[in-house]
């Protein structure tokens, strides 16, 4: 995934090690669950004028 071909972009050696260890440490399912809950809260928040603007803009573009 990570390109280390160019020295310019090569992360420091200790960071590579950290990165590899991180795979074990971050609970990706817990993160996903938190994101889904926040997504539901976000989606439930009303934004009528914004949605109106989007529809108006898209209809003017398509016309």
């Amino acid at each position, binding site marked *: *995934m990570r390109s280390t071909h160019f020295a310019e972009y090569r992360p420091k050696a200790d960071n590579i090690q950290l990165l590899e260890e991180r*795979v074990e440490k971050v609970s990706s399912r817990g993160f996903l669950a*938190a994101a889904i809950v926040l997504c539901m809260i976000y989606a439930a928040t009303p934004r009528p*004028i914004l949605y109106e603007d989007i529809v108006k*803009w898209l209809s003017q573009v398509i016309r």
Partner: protein
Amino acid sequence: MEFGRWIVFLVLNIVIFVGWFGVLNRQAHTVSTRLIIAFTLSTAQILSSMFFLGLPWARLTAVNLALLNGGFSGALLAMSALRQQLLITFADLGRAARDLIAATRGGPVPKILTILTAVVIAWTVFIALIYPPVEWDSLMYHLPAVGHYMQQESITDPPLPMEAYSEHGIDGSVWVNAFPKNIELLFLWATIIPGNDTVVDLVEMIFALIGMVAVYVLAIRLGVAREWAVSAGMLFFLTPIVMAQSRSGLIDLSNSALVLVSLALLFSGTSQRRPSEVVVAGIAMGIVVGSKWSGLLFLPVLLAMLIGQRFYWNYRDRMPKLRQAVNESVLFIGPALIFGSYWYVKNWYLYGNPLWPFRISLLGRQIFSGVLAESVVRGRIFPSQLQGMNVLQMLWTSWRELIIYGYDHDMKLGGLGPFWFILGLPAIFYTLLWMIRRREWAQVLIFLAAAAMLVLHPDNWWTRYTMFIAGLGAIAYAFIRSAGPRPEVARLLDIMLIVMVIYSTIAGLTAGYYQPAKIRALLAKPANLRTSAGVRPEIISRAFDYIAGETAGEPANIAYGSGLDFTYPLWGSALRNRVYYLRPNRLSSWVEKLREKRVRYLLIKKDGPEQVFVDKSPLFRRVYFDRRRGYEVYTFRGIQTEG
């Protein structure tokens, strides 16, 4: 003539940037780091040249600026050429571009983000080129500062109203002399060299792009994989409030971008900070301090982070702590004070208060007198939806985007978009947790510093002031995503990310006055008739249009009266008019000043203090009246009478 000025402007910017990029040590800094360093130094150079030509004397002209900057940067370029660095510099930039393209081909997320970023850049350039400045604050004081400095060829304070609010209305131009003006000097740069304000609304977009690179640099230094570091940069750019401010004449985005530059340069990824990077981080923060009062709050936070990281590293490596911490602090604070302090010292000297016009009190005791209580301004801008809430409730309400209008450059609720709320926030929480478990305190301090700057800002619910946290959210997400979560989780996260960024990008493009029908109507008009009042008649009087129309062919001197919120449209898009505020003390002295300034048009508020004089004297003839907003335009015949 005009085409020639554009060429000069383009060449100057390239020469200044490449001049600095070329002299930077290739072994010491990566290409991306050199980009943000060269940009910061280029900005510092332009500001320094403005101070040199516009402060001790009135020699701030396009020719002088071009000669000074061209000469200095030409010398830097010659130095690079002598060291045979110039060709290598271009080769580095070419290779970096190729690597960037390769990184964006890594997967569906970087590919889609790249397409969206390209579309937004193209759209922003298009909008900025055809729209006149339309933002409240830019018409009120950011751009009037440009007009005044340009006409007087210096950056000293012009004579302007001293009361912000009066019975006659808001005197918007009081803020021209009140606020620090570093970024406005860059707006002046983008106006004075080409000779018009066509690209002034693109200055902030350049900062957005630099903010993108700073996010990338910080992500890489935190150990994020390149593909995701590039994505983090683009996620910052695609934040709705960043997109909206990219096409504005406001200064919030540049400040957040420079905070990100400073954060990136102060954390090298190891315990070895490069002194040159600490100095440039200080310059970046100095520009912030000299642009916005909030910089005064941010600077000590970043200093505390710098010292905290140094103490942690040296404690861990069993090295003496104090000396290096002091050295780095001086390298950081020195340039910050050099580039940030002028405007405060000037206000202290001229008005007896560094934060004039606000009254400053500490523990109930007034330290500096002023004409305005901060609570008065806050009371006027504070959204009713947040009344009675504590800080956390306010942030929650703003971040979940309980927005009453579409995405806008100064929207009060929302602006960070769904990505920040849904993925950025939990990503910061998880990343911090991981860093704390690993005892990566130097990395933790970066996020704590960002949190401290957020909490310290008195209007932290207003996302325009805290855009830098969007960069941290993007980095934290990239940190987690590049760690390689389980494939099924990664797939779902990618889908969520793509859906929400496509949605927020479209939503960000659709703000009310950028509707396609309005764009078509604007394009149908000749460039000099695309006026601010034409785009936003709900806040800008048509009286400005009348004056713009009358002075389009032959520029004129214009005076304005008390209680006027906006003054920038009076200059016209080529800034060929000269604009004055003349205090109405007595009729005879006021008329004398009008004569002295050779004023032809007068714009006043009906029932303002100037109205009595105008009614008494036969020298004035009303030629336009905006009944809805109560603005009157008069011609002044004092010059002809005299002749």
